[in-house]
């Protein structure tokens, strides 16, 4: 099959179109470029759907806003006794609540795979002559982008929590949000490969999300905890992103080093302080591992 010279769209009139023969479309041999084009369209579809679904964007902001303003304000008098002078409780929990703002959106983006299966669209993707990894990667990137957008909206409220709008800080936080969102979406996609019912998916999400959030140290410092809680916080993957985010925020505040040490002590493994780079690498590694599992799972389906 050869491709004919095709005139630009606007030069074809209806009469000409009726007379012209079939427009020849030579579908090329599969190549990496073709797979990348598939990644891009799957990614763009997520953006289009997010753009048309404004309600979702607003409703997913409700929870973090409640945590920051209601819980943050309500507890601040109580918490102020334990906080160094000049540090607001809202500032302290801001990084953790920021992480939370992408938590639901990321996993729910992955839930769209379950919807797609229910409404048949997944089939359209799975029968296409592209590698399965392209579809899974496109989906994860799409979910990560959408969730990061969501996080950026919440980031706009930083000033209310007395977090400065420092460009470098904002850039760091956006980068960390992107990493977190990608890992969470990969986790969701991995689950969606196996779970065929949307109700079951939602129930499992509820089961995971709140424990992940509460054990991450989003609402309390990681030092001086009872042994059982110390262990659980170290197991929670979310801990390894909340800590670098909090550390980024505190390094841009004008508070005493002593206060920083008390509130953002870093993650310790048996007394050894885990470097921030290692923390982030762990999150990235988990994301990559879950992505690989998700791809393997989707290769197996029909």
């Amino acid at each position, binding site marked *: *099959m050869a*491709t004919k010279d*095709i*005139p*630009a*769209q606007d030069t*074809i009139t*209806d009469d000409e*179109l009726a007379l012209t023969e*079939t*427009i*020849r*479309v*030579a*579908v*090329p041999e*599969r190549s990496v470029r*073709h797979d990348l*084009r*598939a990644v*891009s*369209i799957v990614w763009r*579809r997520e953006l*289009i*759907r997010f753009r*048309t*679904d404004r309600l979702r964007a607003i409703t997913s902001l409700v929870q973090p806003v409640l945590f920051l303003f209601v819980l943050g304000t309500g507890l601040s008098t109580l918490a102020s006794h334990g906080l160094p002078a000049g540090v607001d409780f809202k500032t302290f929990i801001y990084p953790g609540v920021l992480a939370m703002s992408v938590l639901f959106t990321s996993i729910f983006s992955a839930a769209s795979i379950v919807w*797609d*299966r229910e*409404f*048949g*669209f997944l*089939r*359209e*993707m799975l*029968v*296409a*002559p*592209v590698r399965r990894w392209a579809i899974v990667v496109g989906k994860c990137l799409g979910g990560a982008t959408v969730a990061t957008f969501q996080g950026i909206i919440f980031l706009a409220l930083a000033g209310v929590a007395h977090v400065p709008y420092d460009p470098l800080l904002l850039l760091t936080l956006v980068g960390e949000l992107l990493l977190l969102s990608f890992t969470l979406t990969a986790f969701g996609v991995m689950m969606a490969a196996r779970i*065929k019912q949307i109700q079951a998916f939602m129930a499992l999400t509820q089961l995971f999300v709140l424990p992940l959030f509460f054990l991450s140290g989003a609402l309390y410092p990681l030092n001086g905890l009872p042994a059982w809680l110390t262990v659980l916080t170290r197991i929670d993957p979310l801990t390894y992103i909340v800590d670098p985010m909090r550390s980024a925020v505190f390094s841009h505040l004008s508070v005493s080093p002593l206060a920083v040490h008390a509130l953002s002590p870093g993650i310790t493994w048996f007394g050894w302080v885990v470097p921030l780079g290692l923390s982030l690498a762990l999150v990235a590694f988990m994301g990559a591992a879950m992505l690989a599992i998700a791809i393997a799972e989707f290769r197996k389906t*029909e």
Partner: protein
Amino acid sequence: MAKAISVSALTKKYGEIDAVRGIDFEVAAGETFGFLGPNGAGKSTTIKILCTLADPTSGSARVAGHDVVRERDTVRRNIGLVFQDTTLDSYLTGEQNLRFHADLYGVPKAAFAPRLRQVLEMVGLWERRGSVVGTYSGGMQRRLEIARGLLHAPRVLFLDEPTVGLDPQTRVSIWDYINELKRREDITIFLTTHYMDEAENCDRIAIIDHGEIVAIDTPEALKASIGKDRVQISTADDQAAIRALDEVFGVDSGVHEGLVTFSVESGEHFVPRLFAGMPVAIRSVSVSRPSLDDVFMSYTGKTIRDAEASIGDRNRRIATRFGRR
């Protein structure tokens, strides 16, 4: 001439259930080939294997010159699929759905815009391309799926029950589009149906029952193989007419739909003899050729509705064991 589809000794087992029991057939390039049979006869299983969505248990199949198991991706590039259940994204517009498809199938970017217009005009949806698919009617969604199946100019288009679940008027219009498509595109069409009247649109049909092909030919030849025409007469005295038919012509008859009905070979030659020999007055006569219903009945010993009723149980067993998707 290369065969668009060739299938030999194909079988498919789901556990202990034989969905397809060793079928052979070929479809020539440019042909419209129909698989006719009741639900659960093995039509959908066969189409799934040909579309690379299921692996055969044994036997082989080639589509557009490529093996469906060993050259899966090449086959996929050369086929278009329209499934029974909709596979559109109802939150995207018609055009966005087609753009998604074009990118997944690697349609050259320069060819997309004119091809988009061509396929959408063919199915009468060009004006509605900017509307969200959720606002389309069932018939429009099916037409959009047909347009999408054609977008990458496949050599073989698979239509799995293309009109199921649509109202009669929409069914007719879908067929108008399919016939238009046969005229316009150089394409082989493979379709499944359990509607007899739709099978008439095919160049050739295979009748499939219990996972086996029981007959395969053009609709005309299949009907001719039955031989007999159906004659219905309205008379002044039906009982006398039935007796006379038996005594004078040696033909069994009965009253159906208020008319004396019987089957004879070449009915148009029988009618003059009927007028000459019938002792009671005849008010009207109609002669009809055998329908595909009669063909199905003669090959399987039951009407397609009977077959669906009896196969329901088996189907449900398959459905509960393997799920539909």
